[in-house]
């Protein structure tokens, strides 16, 4: 009986101690004093900050009470993950693809200065007129996807964009 009790104790102890670690998965967020967004912010948390779960909110499944550097507070479940967020190097192809494109663009700008008109929507040779008179680009699906994937902004540029409108 004693043996079982000790086993259960160690089992629960381990679960509490090690299994309930979370990481901040977004760029930055705050630790709140109460489980709602209007409450006071205790401190700022950066992406990858390690948090220890204390308990979940009783009223809803959204807020978690966590501990960070000896301070306890609340954080929404949407902004944490069990796995450490991937670093930039580990990101899947998109960024790498874009960085290669940028390198290619830099190199080609040194070698030849032929303008790339494949995604130039203002170039009328890339447009067709519908029967309603609207202009549509005649670029292929692959080119449209490439155009979409070429939009990449660094974190600092995105923060600047938000700050310009007085958001952050």
């Amino acid at each position, binding site marked *: 009986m004693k043996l079982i009790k000790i086993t259960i104790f160690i089992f629960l102890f381990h679960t509490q101690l090690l299994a309930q670690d979370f990481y901040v998965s977004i760029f930055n967020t705050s630790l709140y004093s109460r489980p709602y967004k209007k409450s006071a912010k205790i401190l700022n948390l950066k992406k990858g900050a390690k948090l220890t779960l204390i308990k979940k909110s009783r009223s809803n499944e959204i807020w978690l009470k966590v501990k960070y550097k000896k301070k306890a507070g609340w954080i929404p*479940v949407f902004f944490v993950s069990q796995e450490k967020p991937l670093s930039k190097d*580990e990101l899947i192809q998109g960024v790498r693809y874009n960085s290669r494109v940028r390198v290619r663009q830099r190199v080609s700008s040194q070698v030849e200065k032929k303008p790339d008109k494949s995604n130039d929507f203002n170039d009328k040779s890339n447009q067709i007129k519908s029967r309603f008179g609207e202009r549509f680009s005649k670029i292929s699906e692959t080119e449209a996807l490439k155009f979409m994937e070429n939009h990449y902004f660094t974190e600092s540029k995105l923060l600047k964009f938000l700050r310009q409108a007085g958001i952050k």
Partner: protein
Amino acid sequence: MVSKNKIISIVVLTFLFFPLSCATVFRSTGLETEKKEELALEKKYGRLLAKKIFSLYPLYHNKQANFYLNQLGQSVALFSGRSHLNYRFAILEAKSVFAWASPGGYVFISKGALKKMQNEAELAGVLAHQIAHLNYAHLIKKHPPPQETINFIDKVVTFLLTQGSLVSEAFKKVVDESLAYLRQGFGIEDEYQADLATLYYLDEAGYQAKAYLDFLKRVNSEKNTKDLKKRIRRLNNILRQHKFSLKKPLVKDRFRARMRSVK
């Protein structure tokens, strides 16, 4: 007194059960683990579906508007759950009001939807909603991608059978089905889940969460559907109960300036 052997057996038993206990706790939080390979497969799936979407509706040829959309969308994505995905956004040449998300971070919005919006917060809300669908992997759960062939010989056979394409017929079928599913719309439970996350993403990014509800109300006034009514009622309750700030900005001026060229 507990003997030495018994203590050893306790420790061994504890470590044997430990992974099980971890799994239980992780599952109970409703979050899922992500692996790099899964992300690569998701990206492939997303690219195939994105191409299908572009074959249905062409890309709206407005560089300025697409640039702005990506700036805004990627800013919102910084404050959403899976910031290691590369989110990309595009405007589709369509008059109807809709927004779609393809796995791997590809988000589409119709020109018709953009015209219905009055401020940047509303647009951020719609993009955040699509990001939420991606974070919950709603589409992938309904139409999971087929298992990829890892074997080199299998890859060669697929290459020969599909006349040079490395995409199997099974994969193409799943992509077709998922496009049909997107056109039909997600189930109400998935929409509820994404709506709740939308409000949190929007508020965290710094916009007024209520703006998303305002946009849905405007859409509902023209396209009255039962599901949309239910969602609006539920969002009203959430906004009241979860105490979101109503003082955060809507950003009207920048939105109007950047969207002036959208005709």
